[in-house]
């Protein structure tokens, strides 16, 4: 379904992804773990062609998205929903208008059908009573759910989630986790980026851990939970010292901030 093959990407002189290979099977929910700044978002961006690899290849739904062929990109993006970290809603449109946007702008769908589909996805994310509010008037968790509704309105086969639960209270996180599991039961393929371990264990079929541009560990929930890999252990237990922080502990305030987010 999704295949990254030896993807290397350098940004501002730093090698973020280094010959990274990863594949996601049809209907699978794969969770990508990693500390902040390790390139999780960069990886997701490669899957929808928002970034191109310097070397390597990215295939989605059997199409080579790293080729940057515009018609392939359009075709693939139609089948892929992307939930951005903060929802990425347009703030001058209401929640409803935001969700309807992809239908209105790109598909020739009738007004009735648009209304119906928008109501359906808003109900799914439990926002049907907030459709007329503007993004600035609702909470961060609701904005994420609205972003998810927009990602779902075109009936995607693949959904990519960028930190869907970060910054949310436990209840909002549970709502999101439930939604992800619900999507999973309908056979949608998902990649979910997070550093929220509870969420990862709750939704994942497989978990991959990204560090220094490579997948350091990959396995089912139980395999990761019981893994002896020191990097995985450090991440799960939120230890300050270990292979993940090797040599980066003296990185000043930045490192301190990252530690907080991981723990």
């Amino acid at each position, binding site marked *: 379904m999704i295949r990254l093959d030896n993807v290397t990407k350098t940004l501002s002189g730093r090698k973020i992804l280094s010959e990274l290979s990863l594949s996601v099977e049809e209907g699978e929910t794969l969770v990508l773990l990693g500390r902040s700044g390790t390139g999780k978002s960069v990886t997701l*961006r490669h899957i*929808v062609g*928002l970034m191109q690899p310097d070397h390597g290849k990215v295939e989605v739904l059997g199409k080579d998205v790293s080729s940057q062929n515009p018609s392939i990109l*359009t075709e693939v*993006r*139609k089948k*892929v929903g*992307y939930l*951005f*970290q*903060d929802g*990425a*809603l*347009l703030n001058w449109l209401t929640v409803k208008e935001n969700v309807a*946007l*992809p239908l*209105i*702008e*790109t598909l020739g769908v009738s007004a009735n059908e648009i209304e119906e589909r928008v109501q359906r996805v808003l109900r799914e994310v439990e926002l049907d009573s907030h459709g007329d509010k503007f993004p600035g008037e609702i909470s961060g968790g609701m904005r994420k759910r609205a*972003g998810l509704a*927009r990602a779902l309105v075109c009936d995607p086969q693949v959904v990519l989630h960028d930190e869907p639960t970060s910054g949310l209270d436990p209840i909002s996180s549970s709502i999101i986790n439930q939604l992800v599991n619900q999507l999973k039961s309908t056979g949608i393929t998902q990649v979910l980026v997070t550093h929220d371990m509870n969420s990862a264990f709750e939704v994942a079929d497989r978990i991959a851990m990204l560090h220094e541009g490579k997948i350091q560990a990959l396995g089912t929930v139980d395999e990761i939970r019981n893994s002896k890999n020191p990097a995985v252990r450090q991440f799960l237990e939120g230890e300050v010292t270990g292979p993940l922080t090797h040599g980066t502990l003296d990185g000043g305030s930045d490192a301190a901030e990252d530690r907080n987010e991981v723990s």
Partner: protein
Amino acid sequence: MTGAVEALGRFLGRSAESTGYGLVLLGKTMLTIPHLLNRRRMRDCLNLMFTYSVGSFTVTAVVALFTGMILALNGGDSLASLGQENLIGRIVAISMIREMGPFMTALILTASLGSGIAAEIGTMKVSEEIDALEIMSISPIKFLVLPRLVALTLVTPVMTIIAAFIGILGASIVAANNFGVTWIAFSNDALENLKLGDVHIGLIKSVVFGVTIATVGATQGLLTRGGATGVGEAARRAVVISFLLVIILGYYLSWLYLS
């Protein structure tokens, strides 16, 4: 010293990058003009024209009024010492219509609307809204840049005409009160000496300035990186670059017209 050289190098590098980007952006936006036939794009465009006009009217009117009065005061003072204060009408009218009106309006619109466009698009860039549009296969150029470019390009000449008119009005008040030039004498002198070409060059300038301000604003917005500070920086760059381009392009357009 090397720090300064490095900074200059970086500045030139970024300028070259954004000039190229801006020209390509302008070209691409022009190609999307047929999308204005789309009812939604037209509605966005009309809404923006309304917002832009309302948002900049008061400050433009006040600045224009006082610019006209200052011109009349200084011009009248020099002319009166030669006993030629009856020429005040033509001097004010020609300079307001040919130079000051377009120039002053462009500076005001740069500060109020150009920086606004850069900040608005820049905010969308850093909060991944532009990426979201791309993924929905909605072209940010068609969806965001086109309506802003067209709206600003149409609003600028309108505001310029209003500014020139109010400026001349202000000048006529000073001419009457301070130099005893009647309203009739003032407007006769202005109308007799004003050429259609003066009006044309004023309008051409205002259109060029409108395109420039919108393009620079959109370019800096789309090139924004690095969070909230990046947005502030984009707005600041949009203002500085537009000011420079307006004054340089203004000079060359005048030079072309007069030669």
